[in-house]
């Protein structure tokens, strides 16, 4: 396995990794740096990577872990999730409780922008659950929160997304 092969994989997967980092970190600049770091890490452990597995999920798992580590190093995770840790989440309306249009009524670009605009505590679970297909348990472990809070955050994230998407339309 040589560098040329890795470089080909880099070109093929840069967009995906950058996209994941941008969604997790919420900043284009941070995402650019993080993407480089992720591929550097990937390059170092490339030889250990079992080639019969798809490269994409492997490099994206590195990216996801790296972004979480980065946020943890910046002590942002603890601060972001401290308000829900150990306490009951805010009550959630039993009805759908909104006149907003559903998320699926918007195009992919708007949804992406709305996800990036979400506060970190909603953005991270959304990206991990619906981009990386992580289970509630995985998300809870990585973010250092309780499993039952993950569902609450995801539900509230959907409500926020609907609201943000509809506000954007209203502004237009």
């Amino acid at each position, binding site marked *: *396995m040589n560098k040329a092969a890795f470089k080909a994989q880099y070109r093929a997967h840069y967009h995906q990794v950058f996209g994941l980092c941008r969604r997790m970190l919420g900043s284009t600049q941070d995402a650019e740096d993080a993407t480089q770091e992720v591929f550097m890490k990937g390059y170092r452990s490339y*030889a250990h990577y079992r080639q019969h597995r798809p490269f994409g999920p492997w490099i994206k798992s590195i990216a996801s872990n790296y972004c979480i580590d980065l946020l943890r190093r910046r002590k942002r995770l603890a601060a972001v999730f401290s308000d829900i840790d150990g306490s009951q989440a805010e009550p959630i309306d039993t009805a759908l409780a909104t006149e907003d249009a*559903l998320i699926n009524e918007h195009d992919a670009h708007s949804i992406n922008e709305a996800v990036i605009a979400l506060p970190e505590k909603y953005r991270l679970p959304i990206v991990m659950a619906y981009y990386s297909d992580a289970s509630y348990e995985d998300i809870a472990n990585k973010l250092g929160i309780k499993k039952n809070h993950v*569902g609450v955050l995801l539900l509230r994230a*959907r409500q926020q997304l609907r609201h943000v998407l509809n506000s954007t339309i209203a502004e237009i």
Partner: protein
Amino acid sequence: MNCPTLLVQSHYADGELDSKQALVFEAHRSHCDACKTRQHHFMMETEALKTALRTDVEVLTVPQLHTAPSARYAFLTIALVITGAVLIDIAWQKLGVALSFPGWLNWLVPGVVDTAFNALDFFAGLLQAALGNGGRSLQTTLLWLTPVILLFAFVHRHARHNASMPALLLCIVVSVAYAPESSALDIRHDDDRITVSANEVIDDTLIVAANEVVVEGDVSGDLIAVGEKVTIRSKIGGNVFAFAEELEIESAINGTVFALGESVEINDTSISGNLFLAGEKFRNDSPVIISGNVLLAAKDAELGADIGRELWAATSSLVFSGTIAKDLRYYGGELELSGQAKIGGHLRAMVADEASVKVHDTAQILGERTVELVPEETSKHSTFDYYFERLMKLLAAFLFGLLLYWLLPSLRFMSALDGRDLLGASALGAIALITTPLLAVLVMFTLIGLPIGIAALLLWIIALYAAPVVAGAYLGDAILGNNEHHKPVLALLLGLLILFVLASIPFVGSAVRLIALIMGLGIIVRWLREFWDAQNYREA
């Protein structure tokens, strides 16, 4: 009938409801249109989210792949090294900490640690002497340099490329503004004679050259004196660099003395730093106090100084009658320690025969006395066999390296370790160097652990041989650059060649070998860890 909460429905939509609750919900949903609709909405939203999130972000250009260490880690590494140097220097100079490795380390790596540390000690003194004149000490220089580097690294990291260049310029300006003041120069030269009279005070660095030079007035900075005959009888605030056929010093010198002369006499003098002296004849009759080390290379020398640290002498003959706080290392013809001589540390002499070392009965040597005999043949550096042996060793290391990377190709990827990782890896290497044999021996004491202990020791010995090869490959990769046109075999050869050349230099060589060993071991340990991680990797 009450509908389940949104939270329960959301859990169900995400497949996170346990089977019992899921059955209850499904039973309810079968006859509740509102819940059916809500589930449908949830599913539609989830699909829309997945599709949107998995749509590639538009990136106009994919940047170049960087596998080289990033600049900020390089800055951080430099800053850490400088900070470490400051702390060691402060401990060394201000607190008078005597640094010496415990003897058992030498058992692990015979000869290397001791020699490396002595070399480190010596060069630290040299560095201090070079930088520490007048008000400008090594500590102050390094102390202002460290925040400047860290500041630049911080700005580089956070402001990124558009602000890096102004930040660099700002740091240079800050460096210049806060740098310690340098002395002005006073340059004097004459074909015949120059005298700086006793009532004259030179508040600068003085450079003086003449047939005969006499300095009797005080100099606050450095003194550089060149002449056929140079006499210095004054207070010198900084270092003294004196080159003369006949050199005479009677001074109080606040720095280090570098002296070269055919005949050198130093009397009634105190030197705060080190004394580096080379000449045909050297003698001192009246008291001389030297706070640092003395490095003496002369044909015949008589020395009665009080030396604060070590004396390293290479002479045809040396008569010593002073005191040395630490070791005396002697290389050459004949060494005589007179009755007043006192050595606080060890005496290590390398001479042609034992009778060449004469120690008076009343002379005191507090440490060990070791006399090594110089082999009769000429220097190993001048024999063909030596170079042939080195070449064979290089070839063996190269072939071993090729075999190693053929068997374990992933080791090659460790060249992408950046400065920060390498520092961490080196720390791991140092720990592995010491702890592996100890743990192996401990494990051997248990019956079941005997084969494990033996295997660990064997692996450790192989790793000791492999470590410099791995370090050589890293060095080669760093020099040739880890780019598309990278030639790994050439990089390995180049790295090993450089290491072998550096390792052949006296004193420095031992330190190079030790650093390469620790660095290489660290890279191997790091590789083992990544290998382990990769085995345990769970696909996302």
